[in-house]
């Protein structure tokens, strides 16, 4: 889908904050509210805007179970389908949050989310490493999130400017 300049601006605004009111977006991009609504609808229908979600810092929620691990996976690619088949085998598991094909010393980077370390361990030992094409796995647990998808989790947002200046 080719975006107009105005649509591009709308996407940029919503990407930063999906809760900005349509009326305010309309003012910022100099369109009418109706036109803005239509543009957003078009963006949604074409899946340019896929979904509106919240970025949650679960570490703030007391007793919230949950761990996240990044697993480096070495695999044997198969003739004809390369890495795609094994990648699909892996990403179909509900525990798997993301799968990337990587350059470098291993092939697939798999991000897994689970309730406990034990659950991740079970996933790796019982589901992941038992797949035929998987040669080896190295699991890294994430200890703390500082920045995620461009969002700093505890930013210093204090306005340090003096209140009135020339």
């Amino acid at each position, binding site marked *: 889908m080719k975006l107009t300049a105005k649509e591009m*601006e709308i996407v*940029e*605004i919503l990407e930063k*904050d999906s809760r*900005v009111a349509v009326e*305010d977006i309309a*003012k*910022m*991009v*100099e369109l009418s509210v109706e036109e803005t609504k239509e543009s957003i609808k078009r963006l949604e229908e074409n899946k340019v805007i896929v979904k509106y979600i919240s970025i949650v810092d679960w570490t703030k929620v007391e007793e919230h179970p949950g761990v996240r691990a990044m697993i480096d996976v070495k695999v044997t690619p198969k003739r004809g389908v390369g890495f795609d088949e094994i990648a699909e085998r892996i990403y179909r598991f509900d525990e798997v949050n993301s799968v990337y094909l990587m350059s470098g010393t291993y092939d697939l980077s798999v991000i897994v989310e689970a309730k406990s370390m034990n659950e991740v361990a079970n996933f790796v030992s019982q589901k992941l490493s038992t797949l035929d094409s998987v040669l080896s796995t190295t699991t890294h647990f994430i200890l703390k999130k500082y920045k995620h998808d461009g969002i700093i989790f505890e930013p210093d947002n204090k*306005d*340090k*400017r*003096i*209140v*009135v*200046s*020339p």
Partner: protein
Amino acid sequence: MKSTKSTYVSKLVNDLKPSGIRRFFDLAAGMEGVISLGVGEPDFVTPWHVRESAISSLEQGYTSYTPNAGLLELREEIAYYMKSQFDVEYSPKEEIIVTVGASSAIDIAMRTILDPGDEVIVVEPCFVAYVPMVELAGGVAVQVQALKENDFKILPDQLEAVISEKTKAIMLCSPNNPTGTMLSKHELEDIAHLAKKYDLLIVADEIYAELAYDEEYTSMAAIEGMKERTILVSGFSKGFAMTGWRLGFVCSTPEISNAMLKVHQYALMCASTMAQYAAIEALKNGRPEVDEMVKSYRRRRNYIVQSFNEIGLECHNPGGAFYAFPSIKSTGLNSQEFAEQLLLKEGVAVVPGDVFGESGEGHIRCSYATSLEQLQEAVKRIKRFIDSL
């Protein structure tokens, strides 16, 4: 600071008017929960890679003086920047001086060109320091008023009417603080024509040049035949979000630059070394952030100007800078009353227009260099304030 007069203070300084901004600063500084539209600087922090390069310069021990005119590498970057961005060619070795903010650039320019009694035409409403800087340099500031009905653009006839035998220069600021008004190439040409006709200099404060939203920016020095008549003042504060670094620059002919350098070397020696290293990084790699900031200001300008007009404060569409300058005449209050009552009743700080000159009366300066959430809340409060009158 209390304003008491000392017999030790010179008559010249005693007679300087204190800045009207000061009073509002004192008033607002003591209050809690104030939303400030009174800030004349970006809400962005200097991009990290620029800050990092200053830190790195300190780590490497670059803590000594630089040449008076600034690091040659920085002047070369400035020359490249002025050429590529604004199509003006300056020689890094002969025509560029790195200064302590644009303010000191204007100051040394005034001290360099003025003999006692020489006149400088200052277009108001304008930055609060122009008139005092002319006076401190022994000159006489002749003020002309850019009017609301002309979207705060000065007309050549108005300028011509006040040009006298003693006129040395015209001081211009486009995009303007406080009105946000930007002069088009055509309008600059008309003023340039006068400068040539009466053999005047133009002191062009182009500190907001990066922040132009609708039209491409034209520098006064880029107008044909004007480079040799222009003292171009600019810097890193606004476009690159580097106000606290205090770093500007001034470009002019080799002769004028050489003379300005005399003043600069005795008064200031050189600009801060670490700030100069930061500025090199800003010019080399800062373009993506500048573009992002400009985009963001533009959207906020659109939002605030439309919102002001909706709530009954008539506001022209400013072509640049980050100020909206709505009229508050419909409220029946003058700008000081409006700003003071708005601050006390609703906790929104704005700057009354009259502090920028008589023709600013009946207006308030609202900086939209603040987050959209704050702008939304400010508009809500201003509306409530107007409705309560």
